[in-house]
């Protein structure tokens, strides 16, 4: 059954902007992205919104709904009260382009800074063999759809623009963890660079990245904290340092 929905949509660009009220019809089963499209079709023809799959798998329609970073295609209109006004804004951690569209190129720059998988020398393509038990831990991280909601909610950059230079963010910590846990990856200094170049130490594990992940990846428990512990192994654990010196432990790299 159709209902009238009150929306507040942020409209503007880098020079000016604000929340605009609009009333729109919403049908049973619709999601927030559906009603935004209806607003675009009927009342705000030039409303900018980024979207693609409408199935929660492309990560395009990231925005903030009632202040929370969400995928607009995954939030049912029915989850809001009849008289509730739904506030829709762009991601607040990234530069605004127009209306609900932000410039997320920060994330692509950070992606390029993460060293790629390093294949073992002499192991020909097709000859690599891995046990399922060795790869399944990092397979969780492959579910990432790069919606960048975790990057948006992370207070290290959301609340401190200046940290963007030195902080890769949770999406790329799971990438580093995925590679560091990869049974065939040969790059030895991922832990060190995670701490010293990608800003792992700036994370204070307040778990907002995990809370907003639409793929329910346990970013903090399964990637960030294990990486912090691996950094402790090589930088803050004198027993393991001693072990590496007498050849009983993996070297500090």
């Amino acid at each position, binding site marked *: 059954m159709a209902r009238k929905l009150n929306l507040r949509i942020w409209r503007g660009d880098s020079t000016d*902007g604000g929340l605009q009220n609009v009333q729109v019809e919403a049908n049973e089963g619709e999601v927030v992205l559906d009603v935004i499209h209806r607003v675009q079709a009927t009342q705000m023809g030039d409303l900018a919104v980024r979207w693609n799959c409408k199935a929660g798998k492309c990560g395009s329609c990231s925005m903030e709904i009632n202040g*929370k970073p969400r995928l607009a295609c995954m939030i049912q209109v029915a989850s809001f009260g009849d008289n509730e006004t739904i506030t829709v*804004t762009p991601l607040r951690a990234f530069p*605004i382009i127009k209306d609900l569209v932000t410039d997320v190129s920060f994330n692509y720059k950070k992606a390029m800074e993460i060293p790629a998988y390093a294949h073992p020398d002499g192991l020909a393509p097709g000859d690599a063999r891995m046990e399922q038990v060795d790869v399944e831990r990092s397979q969780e991280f492959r579910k990432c759809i790069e919606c960048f909601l975790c990057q948006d909610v992370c207070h*290290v950059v959301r609340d401190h623009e200046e*940290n963007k230079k030195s902080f890769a963010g949770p999406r790329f910590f799971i990438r580093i963890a995925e590679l560091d846990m990869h049974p065939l990856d040969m790059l030895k200094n991922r832990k060190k660079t995670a701490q010293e170049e990608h800003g792992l130490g700036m994370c204070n594990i307040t*778990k907002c990245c995990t*809370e907003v992940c639409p793929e329910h990846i346990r970013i903090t428990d399964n990637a960030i904290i294990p990486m912090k*512990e691996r950094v402790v192994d090589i930088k*803050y654990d004198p027993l393991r340092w001693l072990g590496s010196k007498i050849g009983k432990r993996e070297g500090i790299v």
Partner: protein
Amino acid sequence: MSGVFSPTRAEIKERTLRTDKWWLQPAITFGVLLSFVIYATFRTFENKNYFAEPLISPFYSPCLSASCEPGTVLAIFGQPFNNQYFGIGISPALFILIFPLGFRMTCYYYRKSYYRAFWMSPPACAVAEPHTKYTGETRAPLILQNSHRWFFYIGLVFNVILTWDTILAFRNAEKEWGHMSVGTLVFIFSTTMLWLYSLSCHTCRHTLGGRLKHFSKHPIRYKVWTVVSALNHKHPTFAWISLFGVAGADIYVRAVASGAITNFYFF
């Protein structure tokens, strides 16, 4: 202007547009943790009512000071500390509480809790924090959070000691074995929760198997890691229950030692 108010970002004057009760969780955490800190500080300096044969308060065990009450000293440790230094009386609890306190202070779960509730960094997800600068755990003093594994190892020793205290609670006031009281149950609950809290810890998970790159070469450690990982899901729950458990054990011992209640024996 920085953060969400940076000039390049969408111009929104509110620190957050969240409409739910985002402040409730940090407010509860603040109240509960502050209450515990006040109570623990009071008990640390009270320096009495910590022993009622056979129950010793977990805040005072192991009792290592020359002023410890008879019956509270473990022979393996003795009484290496004086009861005062530089003319100032020192409570026996002061010699030991830094270790369980350090374990909880550096715990990954408690860090999340108190960074949010006390330091508001951030107070809640997508709620702008009040600080103008942020360096995380990259420099002193917060870089000391990396000492968590050392507190974890020492915490295990404390768990063994408190387990021994629980075994001793199967005696009666005349030191005869084969008895059980309400205090025994209180201690069993408290110690069990402390073990679950320690074993579900992220550092425990890492140490027992998480640091491995090839689980397939270490099947036993992999099995242990899967068990600890399952416990790790409940780590926040164990963190809170064990905190209440240890406080409850101390409150019970204090009540018995002060004569406010009698430790009821089932047999």
